[in-house]
């Protein structure tokens, strides 16, 4: 039985449907991510779970209990806010002890548990400091320690890494994964950063315009996006309008704009004549100076138009003879360094039939 069961949840703000008929089942101990562009309704959904917003329709069950009549303070759910919302007039120790004080836990026990929590987040010397005397990373740890101290059933995290700089963000990702494994509490994580979602989550729900578009494990979301929006939002993707010419089991023959005849993989059944989009991840493409097409491969001649040297990899923009320009991502594997191709090089661009996906638009 899922610990959190959201059934047909909807929330309107005036005419705007912020969350529209969302149903999600989240398992105990899961690291579940709500991913979507800003304004997609992910934060509203989080606020519905926390109880800050009333449901206009649907129900939310926590451990089998309908939460609709429970105010936020009565739900065993805590939130780590994007701004951390640490109480500025309380010291770190008072902040962390706050949930226990609200539950009238004895002073001695609060003291002991706060000390333990401070040790857990490696801030034992910071007990007497005030939030404005902490660095961004320290504030975030205090916010997490405060939200975990009375062991909620679910921890909601609203873009908790957004305010940190890149290096710290990557370090905190690791810490979050470790922390979630240690405490075993269900995490529901909201972010617009797709790489963060892929790195952290057990499962991801991709949202857009108040609706859940796709729910799956990270590699399925990345490799098998369900439609054009997901393919475009997660990572980079070459998207080419195409029409189905013939179907051969899991492989379809497509007529793609500016490309010509090309084979691609399908997940859902399609009909010849159906219009959609061919999705090609840049790292699935291979570039060679001359290449004999192998069976089960698509191969097109083109010219390198631009390149972006990124150190470990280089992004090449290759214009094919059909007119379309595709992006390819190649590791800079040459021992001597530098990128392997130059602008203006005549090349062959090849990829496996199963690397391309035909998606509904």
């Amino acid at each position, binding site marked *: 039985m899922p610990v959190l069961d959201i059934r047909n949840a909807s929330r309107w703000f005036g005419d705007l449907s912020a969350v529209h008929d969302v149903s999600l089942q989240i398992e105990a101990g899961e690291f579940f991510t709500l991913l979507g562009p800003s304004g997609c309704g992910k934060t509203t959904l989080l606020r519905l779970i926390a109880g800050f917003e009333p449901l206009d329709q649907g129900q939310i069950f926590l451990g089998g209990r309908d939460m609709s009549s429970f105010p936020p303070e009565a739900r065993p759910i805590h939130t780590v806010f994007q701004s951390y919302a640490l109480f500025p*007039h309380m010291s770190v120790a008072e902040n962390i002890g706050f949930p226990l004080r609200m539950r009238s836990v004895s002073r001695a026990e609060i003291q002991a548990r706060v000390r333990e929590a401070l040790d857990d987040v490696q801030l034992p010397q910071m007990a007497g400091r005030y939030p404005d005397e902490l660095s961004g990373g320290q504030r975030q740890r205090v916010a997490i320690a405060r939200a975990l101290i009375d062991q909620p059933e679910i921890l909601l995290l609203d873009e908790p890494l957004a305010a940190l700089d890149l290096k710290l963000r990557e370090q905190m990702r690791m810490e979050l994964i470790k922390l979630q494994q240690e405490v075993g509490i269900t995490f529901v994580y909201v972010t617009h950063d797709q790489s963060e979602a892929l790195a952290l989550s057990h499962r991801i729900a991709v949202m857009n315009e108040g609706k859940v578009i796709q729910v799956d494990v990270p590699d399925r979301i990345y490799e098998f996006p369900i439609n054009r929006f997901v393919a475009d939002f997660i990572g980079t993707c070459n998207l080419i309008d195409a029409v189905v010419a013939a179907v051969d089991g899991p492989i379809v023959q497509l007529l793609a704009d500016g490309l010509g005849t090309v084979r691609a993989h399908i997940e859902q059944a399609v009909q010849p004549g159906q219009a959609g989009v061919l999705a090609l991840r840049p790292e699935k493409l291979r570039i060679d100076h001359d290449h004999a097409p192998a069976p089960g491969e698509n191969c097109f001649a083109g010219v390198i138009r631009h390149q972006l040297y990124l150190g470990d990899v280089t992004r090449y923009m290759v214009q094919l003879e059909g007119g379309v320009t595709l992006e390819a991502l190649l590791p800079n594997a040459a021992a001597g360094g530098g990128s392997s191709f130059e602008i203006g090089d005549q090349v062959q661009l090849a990829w496996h039939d199963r690397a391309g996906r035909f998606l509904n638009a």
Partner: protein
Amino acid sequence: MRNRERLTRWLIAGPPWLYLLLLFVAPTLIMVAASFGWPGVEGGLAPLWYRDAQGLHFDLTLDNYINLAATSLYGWLFLKSLVYAVVVTLCCLILAYPLALTIARSPKRWRDALLLLVILPFWSNFLVRIYAWMIILGPQAGLSRLVNGALGWLHMAPVALLFSPFAVLIGLVYVHLPFMILPLYANLEKHDPALLDAARDLGARPWQCFWQITFPLSRPGVIAGAILVFIPALGAFAVPDILGGTRGIMIGNVIKMQFLEARDWPFGSALSIVMTLLVLALTAAAAWAARRAGGRIYA
């Protein structure tokens, strides 16, 4: 270049210093000097020094302060005014807080209009508003009849609302209320709503949210409002003059009388100096207490 910089700095910093000196330091010094002088033959202030063949002579006395200390009436009036000012400040705080909170939490587009309503009474003359209270509290007005009707029904003696300490307190609270509302609102409006979300999320019931988060964070506003109400209320004379009758007199009335009716400027100055020192001492004590109470004043 350096000279021009220095000139600019003086042009910016100069005027405030100048008016502080002219309108604050100089009058205070004059007042201190006057409090050690003699009243003039025709009232006012006798010259503080004179010059004769032997040179310059100062003609100063401690009589004013001795007189003040020896007459218990003044001590009682100081104490009474202090009690009035404390009560007025507390009443203003209790009345202003919910109002300021309501305005601060109302939709943004309403706030300015609501705030305007708070300031609106300032647009009519202060005396007119106090005379209006004279009519409201007068013996023929509905309020007095209602109260005395109820008292009569309970077999109690009728009371006069006007010309009583009660009327003075009402008048003072009414006059000073906006000075409490405005700093409170300015503070409450800045509070991050995420803090209240966080508090509820972490298990605080609504009243706990208020006492744990909102009120402690509003302390600078409370202190600013209390100072803005307490100090003028302590020295008030117009409201007790109009609404207080003989029983409602405050130290401010005595000071005013020394200057206008008794024309004993030195004694009026001495009373003023004592009151100024009293306010300074109380403010310092309050600041010290606030610091000792621990925690930080978060602005």
